């Protein structure tokens, strides 16, 4: 299926869902759910490995649509600045699952933008260093934090070569049902795991990217959009020297 066909289907589903939402209640928005969507009842297996290909050449300067969508999807926009905190410090420390990174080649002056988030390594350093087993890699390749076990030591934040993790410093008044969040735990991108577990197959950042810079899917399925894109275009792992076998790959960096 081509990218345009996929887009057409997504738009169609969104429109259908919107129409249904209007009928149900005003102000209530439904996700675009595939026909067979149902919450998962069987354990995830290693047959699937979720991953992404991000085309940095399509990532536009000044655009932050993926970050905004991620913040909204995962309730990061509900985390308020603690009273009395310094604005500049808050901007550095606030939880963010996607960081916008701008690279400049000093020789040519060429500027490259890319979203940087948890790279969902096959051999994640954050899991290696976690003293409690809270940082773990799910069978389908998603690296997550089990907040029931996390003690907030932040070793994983220091171990991560991608600076992908955030720490929740204060109590959070409002949180979403599918993204619990509380003081003293570390968190990072989980590839919208609640969507995947409920039968959806897209992430919020991918849906939000109007430049179509993000292709998401199953790396183990040779027919998936992401596998075919990886086969067709040259791509790199960031810090490939660490041999972590990341699930997130970049092209045109």
């Amino acid at each position, binding site marked *: 299926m081509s990218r345009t066909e996929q887009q057409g289907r997504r738009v169609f589903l969104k429109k259908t869902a919107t129409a249904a939402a209007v009928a149900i209640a005003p102000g*209530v928005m*439904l996700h675009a759910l595939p026909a067979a969507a*149902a*919450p*998962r*009842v*069987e*354990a*995830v297996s290693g047959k699937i490995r979720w991953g992404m290909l991000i085309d940095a050449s399509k990532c536009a300067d000044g655009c932050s649509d993926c970050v905004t969508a991620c913040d909204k999807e995962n309730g990061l926009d509900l985390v308020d600045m603690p009273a009395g905190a310094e604005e500049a410090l808050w901007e550095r420390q606030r939880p963010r699952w996607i960081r916008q990174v701008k690279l400049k080649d000093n020789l040519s002056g060429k500027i490259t933008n890319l979203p940087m988030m948890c790279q969902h390594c096959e051999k994640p350093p954050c899991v290696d260093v976690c003293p409690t087993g809270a940082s*773990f890699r*799910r*069978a*389908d390749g998603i690296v*997550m934090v*089990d*907040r*029931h076990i996390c003690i907030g030591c932040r070793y994983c934040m220091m171990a991560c070569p991608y600076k992908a993790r955030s720490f929740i410093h204060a*109590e959070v008044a*409002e*949180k*979403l*049902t*599918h993204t*619990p*969040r*509380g*003081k003293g*735990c570390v968190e990072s991108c989980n590839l919208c*795991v*609640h969507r*995947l*577990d*409920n039968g959806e197959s897209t992430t919020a950042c991918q849906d939000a990217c109007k430049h179509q810079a993000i292709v998401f899917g199953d790396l183990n399925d040779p027919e998936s959009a992401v596998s075919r894109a990886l086969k067709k275009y040259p791509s790199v792992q960031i810090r490939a020297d660490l041999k972590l076998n990341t699930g997130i790959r970049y092209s045109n960096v």
Partner: protein
Amino acid sequence: MIRNRSIMLFLAGAMLGLAIGPGNAFAGEAVEGTAKADKLEQCVEPTPVMRRNHFEFIKHQRDLTVHQGIRGSKHSLAGCIDCHARKDASGKAVPVNAQGQFCAGCHEYVAASLDCFSCHSAVPGEK
């Protein structure tokens, strides 16, 4: 045993008279009969089983959800909240951990701390 029985009696009373407690800062006073559970005969298990074992159920389920991705299970905290949260007069959900509400009503009485809601949302999810 006598102590257990008195707690059970209190629990039974609490189920009947939850809405008597005062309201809270987040929403107006809860209106009795506005929770989905108020219209149902029983919970996902018989009521005495739920009263005694509700945390056993979700303690194991939470690991299955986080580590294995199973979200369609019979027992879930999100399910508890979805069904047991009452609404105030304006139709806004009242948190289940607000004073006198479904969870807090008993937990305050037995002085068992209720830590779920320091991370989890105490009102039904946005769907």
